[in-house]
């Protein structure tokens, strides 16, 4: 492997650690700054007496200075203890583990849709003439303007209520049934990103089509399909990949909306609920998980770009 690629990898790992540390501090403070007392998460249906509130505060170090609270939490994480949910009183791991799979599947499904339809429609727009270009432009304009929850409502109305092709609720059991259940949620997640990636792809491909080396190849009489594969798409792909890394990571965060609309018990819906109830340990762990995913996917995209086009890696460049 190219040594520059390896150096890039090392830098990525270093920046991952730094990013995780900084974001964990920011998230921790952000959760503490939101209104509401974490004690209410413990209280639940009970009516805590002042003594009980004091006991809860002491047990969970809620009266300590913020930095001490953070160290407490971070110390636990570094020793493998992700903490206990304030609301459900179970280990955060036990809460998250059963939900990870379904969210990953939902996001993966959406990614496939985005890759196929986003890149596909972008290429079509760039290469199949004016009418195709206009049509894709119009469709992507609509796609970019539609918020995920609106798409969800539209999809439920058309494909579940009127046509009755897809279920409206839940994640299903077994792989195929899950894919079936996740189809509408994945589409509702994907629409915005398909439109976005389509625009990026179109732009990248068009700029390559007009580049010097493609002109040269054309003059040399190389077949169109081959020019497109070897010269246009390959050269356009770093740009597309760079966007994709961030897109996929973003999908994990947006998945909450689709999960809520389709009644899927995934990570996203747990995060929203935990944030509302001030369940600090749960918010913290899921948020950090999202940060890791974000950084790792971006790193993978960068490495992939470096492999395709080693010249793009300039010294000193980080994620």
């Amino acid at each position, binding site marked *: 492997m190219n040594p520059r690629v390896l150096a890039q990898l090392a830098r990525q790992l270093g920046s991952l650690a730094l990013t995780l540390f900084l974001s964990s501090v920011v998230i921790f403070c952000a959760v503490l700054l*939101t*209104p*509401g*007392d*974490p*004690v*209410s*998460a413990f*209280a*639940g*249906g*009970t*009516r*805590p*007496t002042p003594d*009980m*509130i004091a006991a809860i505060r002491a047990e969970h170090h809620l009266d300590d200075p913020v930095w001490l609270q953070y160290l407490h939490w971070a110390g636990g994480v570094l020793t493998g203890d992700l903490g206990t949910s304030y*609301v*459900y*009183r*179970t*280990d955060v791991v*036990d*809460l998250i583990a*059963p*939900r990870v799979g379904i969210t990953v599947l939902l996001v993966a499904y959406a990614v496939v849709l985005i890759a196929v339809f986003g890149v596909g429609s972008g290429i079509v727009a760039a290469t199949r003439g004016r009418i195709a270009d206009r049509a894709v432009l119009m469709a992507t304009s609509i796609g970019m303007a539609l918020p995920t*929850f609106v798409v969800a*409502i539209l999809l*439920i*109305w058309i494909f*579940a*209520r009127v046509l*009755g092709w897809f*279920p*409206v*609720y*839940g*994640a299903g059991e077994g792989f195929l049934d899950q894919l079936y259940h996740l189809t509408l949620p994945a589409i509702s997640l994907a629409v915005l990103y398909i439109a976005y990636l389509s625009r990026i792809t179109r732009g990248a491909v068009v700029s390559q089509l007009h580049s010097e080396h493609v002109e040269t190849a054309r003059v040399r009489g190389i077949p169109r399909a081959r020019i497109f594969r070897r010269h246009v798409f390959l050269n356009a792909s770093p740009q597309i990949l760079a966007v994709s890394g961030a897109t996929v990571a973003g999908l994990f965060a947006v998945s909450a909306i689709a999960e*809520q*609309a*389709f*009644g899927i*018990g*995934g990570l996203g*819906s*747990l995060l*929203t*609920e935990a944030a*509302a*109830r*001030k369940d600090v340990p749960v918010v913290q762990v899921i948020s950090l998980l999202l940060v890791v995913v974000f950084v790792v996917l971006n790193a993978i995209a960068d490495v992939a770009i470096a492999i395709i086009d080693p010249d793009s890696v300039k010294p000193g460049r980080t994620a």
Partner: protein
Amino acid sequence: MRTTGITTAALAAGTVLLLLSGCTARDAEPVPTSAAPVDESSLVAALPDATTEVDEVTWGLVEGEPRTLDPAAEYSFVIPNLCESLLQLQPDFTVEPGLATSAEWVDPTTFVIDLREGVTFWDGTPLTPADVVFSMERNRVESSPWFPAFVLVDTIEQTGDHQVTVSFTAPDSTFRDALSSAAGAVVNAAQAQQAGDAFGTASGDILCTGPYELADWTPGTEIVTTANADYWGGAPLTETLRYVFVPDGTTLTTALLEGEIDGAFNVAPGSRSVFESSDEGRLVLGPSTASFSFGPTRSTGAGANPDIRRALSLAIDREQYVQTVLSGLGAPQKTFTPPFAWDGMEAADQYTDAYAALPDVEFDLEAATALVEESGEDLSVPLVVAIPAGAKELAQTAAIIQAAGAQLGLTVEIDERQPADFTEIFFDPAARESIDFVATAGYLDSPGVLGYAQQFLLPPDLGGFFNWSEYSNEAVTGELQVARTTLDPAASADAFIAAQEVFAPDQLQVTLAGAYHLTFLNDGLTGVTTSVAAYSSPWALHLGAE
């Protein structure tokens, strides 16, 4: 009697109705602006018992995933089918024997509970008086939502192979009925002690005697319960009862209409018309103790002034309120104590007559304006109404209060709070300082008239947990104490009614409407309790196919 109905339902509303405000019924047919009135005599407390077995029923919980199944710590429609109470609340709000065959006063301060013989927990171990003592003692701690039921209890002791005796410091007219709520729920002592903190949670376990047993709980996805073949009252006809968590009201509505979920309680009243035109199932309207109201949060400011509350009450058209907020699925209510709360009680006629004698709720802007002028309050200071975020009905309620205030020259601001922030109002006095009113939806989970009265009117040390405006009236306090400590139903009713005549006009809660208990059930299924009793009794005991 349960005294935390308001908190609970408020909490539930805060956590449960998320997103409802954004998109209720937008995916369905348009909702008519004027909903057909409901004849109260047509309300159904329970559907006919099932006669045919059914393999699996999926039940939607709009309240979301329970935090725990421990009956001492959570309210959830899952729990009453798992963990039974000593007495069994019937759909019509009468009280029948449950795990106890008899539970009676033998003298003014001694209450004897005779346990049903031959009852076993799901694992086959027999129910013992020790389990009953253990379970009651768990509720007899100050932090328990059921503590108010036990305040007059002195000791709880086993007095026989199948008997528990409760001694009191004073007679308690509310105790027997309270045992039909989760205050009287019984868990297995050994298992609860062994499970410790994890008891009832998804990672722990629970052991009770109810008609369904806990089979599996996948966090975020479902709770699976199966028929208890050895249930003392006969095994249910439904083999598997699966609960799924659907906090989004719109998603629940669609899933019910598509038949993907078989039934649910507390469905959105705003979806009334689509439910009524469904060919998949039917909407059942049941009697309830649930009501919508708002009340003061502190002893200072205009909200603490009864004249301002009376004025706001006069400025809100209740018929219109029921139409707008509940789509007609409720009725105006004269005071905070809902009539269904006493429907099954011995002195029901007395309470009904007294209720009838209370002045009707009026809509009179002129009188309201006059009251505001006479109040002497500084109208330039805005009044703040707190509501839980995402609770559509309460958001509408707050908007209606705001509009009523505007008519009277009062500025009303709405403070929509996230669950953690909203819950804080109920236990932190400092959190109440910046608000004037809190709007809530509450219900009473067992028969009794004293629940709200004690919470809102008595001094805090006598049980006035929500008496935040520091209401104090010696006559009212005296009569309420007499009502509580008089075992003779007629005499107890007389005392309550005497107090009610004094406190009702002060509107410690401005009660806006009583709401019916809403159940949507798939066609072909039957046997469900469709009244508010479903919060306390095994509502799916007779569930099955028609």
